[in-house]
């Protein structure tokens, strides 16, 4: 499996050390990632193996992976996005929002190894703020953002109304924005 990672620069020393790193990452993380994906998204299609493979391929396409500090969150986040990309309404929603933001010149930053490295303090900050959300809001964020559930699905599984879910997610995003601003002031 590691040779499927697609490193074509193995002949150079830098390339071979990168190849070794990718092999090690794959060895250390692939099985756990596949397990994790199976528990969250079921057996597919796409299969958890395919999602993990796609995530590793994306990881290998970046030239600066040796700089990644948060390799696991980065890898899992990439896999989550690959999984969500298979949910039709979610893919349409993402495409619509991307298009709208590009159109008005407000394109988003991609999640790349370089950005994760440079923004690690801010990403930690975001994690701390998310940790402080009320339990119900954390559950909604988890289901909506990570599992790609519609409010109808969340409602069916939790009994909460769609309007309540929508309001709670809005409040969560407001609290996160405010929290990031507050934490960054405290840090100074």
């Amino acid at each position, binding site marked *: 499996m590691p040779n499927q990672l697609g490193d074509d620069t193995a002949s150079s020393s830098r390339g071979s050390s990168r190849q070794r790193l990718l092999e090690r990452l794959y060895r250390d993380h692939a099985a*756990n990632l596949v*397990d*994790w994906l199976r528990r969250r998204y079921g057996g597919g299609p796409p299969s958890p193996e395919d999602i993990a493979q796609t995530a590793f391929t994306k990881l290998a396409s970046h030239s600066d*992976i*040796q*700089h*990644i*500090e948060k*390799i*696991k*969150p980065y890898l*899992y*986040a990439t896999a*989550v*996005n690959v999984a969500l990309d298979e949910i039709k309404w979610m893919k349409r*929603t993402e495409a*619509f929002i991307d298009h*709208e*933001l590009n*159109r*008005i*010149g*407000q394109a*988003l*930053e991609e*999640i790349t190894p*370089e950005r*994760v*490295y*440079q923004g690690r303090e*801010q*990403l930690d900050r*975001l*994690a701390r703020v*998310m*940790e402080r959300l009320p339990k119900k809001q*954390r559950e909604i*964020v*988890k289901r*909506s*953002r*990570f599992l790609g*559930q519609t*409010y*109808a*699905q969340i*409602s069916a599984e939790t009994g909460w*109304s*769609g*309007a309540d*879910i*929508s*309001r709670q*997610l*809005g409040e969560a*995003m*407001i609290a996160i*924005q405010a929290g*990031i601003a507050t934490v960054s002031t405290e840090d*100074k």
Partner: protein
Amino acid sequence: MADILPPVERDVDTPQERAARWLAYLYSGAATDEGRGEFSAWLERSSRNARAYRRTQQIWRDMTVSGIETLFPDDDAVRGEPDGKVVPFERPARWLSLVTERRGAMAAIAASLVLATGVWRMEFYDPLTVQSYRTAIGEVKTFALPDGSRVTLAADSRMEATFSKRRRGVDLAQGRAWFDVASNPAKPFTVVAARTQIRVVGTQFDVDYAPDDVRVSVARGIVRVHPLTGRRPGEAGVQLVAGQRVVSSLNGRIGPIERFDPASAALWRTGLLIYHDARLGDVVAEVNRYRADKIVLADKSLGEMKITMAVRASHTDALLSGLEATAPLQIDRTSSGILVRPKR
């Protein structure tokens, strides 16, 4: 789900709060085309809305990285040993170094970047540089923008420039500006005045945000002008070439394309204000930007009078003596300003 509706307009909401509610609506799985249309219109309504939504959406995107450990804490698979050797990047991007430097260093860096009139803001989730520019009454000044473009602001004018990796944008809040835009087809340069948006890739043009309308005059290149409405840009828009201009209403309705003399369009930059069959109301509004003691028209209908005249920006009293000599008007100097009214 019938109970998921687009957020209602409430004046108490900040753009940031509204952005959060729009995100919750869009990711409900129940958003309709109509609802998405309303979202697009809201997004375009102001650059504050646009920036607020971008910031919210960027957080939403970044949550997948930050939330893995937080929301799935019982997972040994996620928490664990750090991996790989951490080697800093050789050249951190400038926005990051600005964010992470200690305060003293921040101030020093900031001081070296800031122009006399400007304030720089850097944010991780919205890595834009925003700078304000303004001129005093009577002052005409040329500024260099971060992309190499140059803008000359007429007296008593204000604008805010927003630059990022992908965007060059200016909000003209008041007054008049001449733009000489550095060419960059990959990164269009936009100017917004009231509800009119101007979009170029590299050219020279003049934007006059007058009391009742916005005039766009093109000296070189091609300029696209369209209303800022819920509709897609391009619809209802016009394309202007050198020597053409349009006047659009404050709510963004664009008038017919007119011809003008490009050589005279930017003479104000040299301190010469030239008017040919111009409304007296417009002339007074512009001339007032060059004087401390304002000229006031006693009667609104006087504003519709057409005049042809040239005055030096530094000697706008010549307008008053010209009016007295050639039109049936009389000038009274009062405590509240210089009153122009019909001769009795």
